[in-house]
């Protein structure tokens, strides 16, 4: 009986799906029932990484990609900086333009995002966004779908993306 119970407990434990494990780093141990024993250490996150985590990560994921409903940023967003309208688009996308943070913070998080998840795709002469540039660009309200389609076509025509699939969005059925 006891053996059976132990086996059952083991099977249950094994079938529990992890919903994301915390990133380990050096720092101080987190006083918590889960981490006290494991000795998990967390170093303070840099401010821009924190801005991304609290403003963007919920939707776009810890590593710049998540659900099909939300465009993947990793390995892709950098392409947009290769033409002027694309560079503007990254600020004017609603979740960026309407974000409650300051212009300087938005510039910082965009620069961080581009450098962290999509450095290889950046324009060769990429200049980081500045607060004043963001301040001006975020005034505009764009039609996201139409703008994006125009930009992707222009990038393709200019030979800036390998194919139309590079920035394609999956077909989504909303329910």
């Amino acid at each position: 009986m006891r053996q059976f119970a132990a086996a059952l407990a083991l099977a249950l434990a094994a079938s529990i799906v992890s919903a994301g494990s915390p990133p380990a780093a050096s720092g101080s141990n987190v006083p918590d029932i889960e981490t006290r024993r494991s000795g998990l250490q967390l170093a303070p996150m840099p401010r821009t990484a924190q801005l991304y985590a609290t403003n963007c990560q919920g939707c776009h994921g810890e590593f710049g990609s998540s659900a099909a409903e939300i465009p993947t940023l990793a390995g892709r967003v950098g392409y947009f900086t290769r033409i002027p309208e694309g560079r503007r688009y990254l600020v004017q996308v609603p979740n960026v333009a309407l974000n409650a943070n300051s212009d300087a913070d938005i510039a910082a998080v965009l620069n961080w995002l581009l450098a962290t998840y999509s450095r290889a795709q950046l324009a060769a002469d990429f200049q980081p966004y500045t607060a004043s540039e963001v301040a001006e660009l975020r005034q505009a309200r764009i039609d996201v779908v139409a703008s994006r389609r125009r930009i992707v076509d222009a990038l393709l025509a200019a030979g800036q993306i390998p194919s139309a699939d590079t920035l394609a969005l999956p077909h989504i059925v909303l329910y």
Partner: protein
Amino acid sequence: MKPICSGRFDGLIESLSRGAAQLTSRRGFLSQCGLWLVAASSLPLLPVARRAQAGERPVAKPARKFASEFANHAQTNDPTRCNYWRYCASDGYLCACCGGGPHTCPPGTSPSPTSWIGSCINPDDGRTYLIAYRDCCGQDSCGRCACLGQEGDMPSYRPQVNNDIVWCFGASSMVYHCSSAGLVGLAE
């Protein structure tokens, strides 16, 4: 009846057990066993046992003053209670009460790829940590341990800072089961 064992002690035990066998039915014995099993396994669910598990500080500590009211009453040992420190901005049923853990989904459900990020003060070190509230999806609402931590919650015209939304979109199934709270990092 001829005793099958020798020795005074064995004989005593034998006559006792034979007597017991005649007085009780086998089924009755099984049901007693079952009762004890259930009783034993439900014991840890009682608040008393939780208090014992929490162990380190069952009695009131001097009031601490954090900027957050939640943190002033939070604890770091029992993820099946609403005042577990990571739940400061959690909304919904605790996965830890539904067969999962504070950051693990119960069997048969899967974590939504999207989450809602909040920040909570750990009452033991006074530092602020970023917490990812991730819904576990794929089975009907768990219904146990409903908690409403409203810290940092914003009206729904800003969807990314509203935690009433079911974040199951993107997961293989839209059905909300419970909410988990994983550590993202240390804010400073």
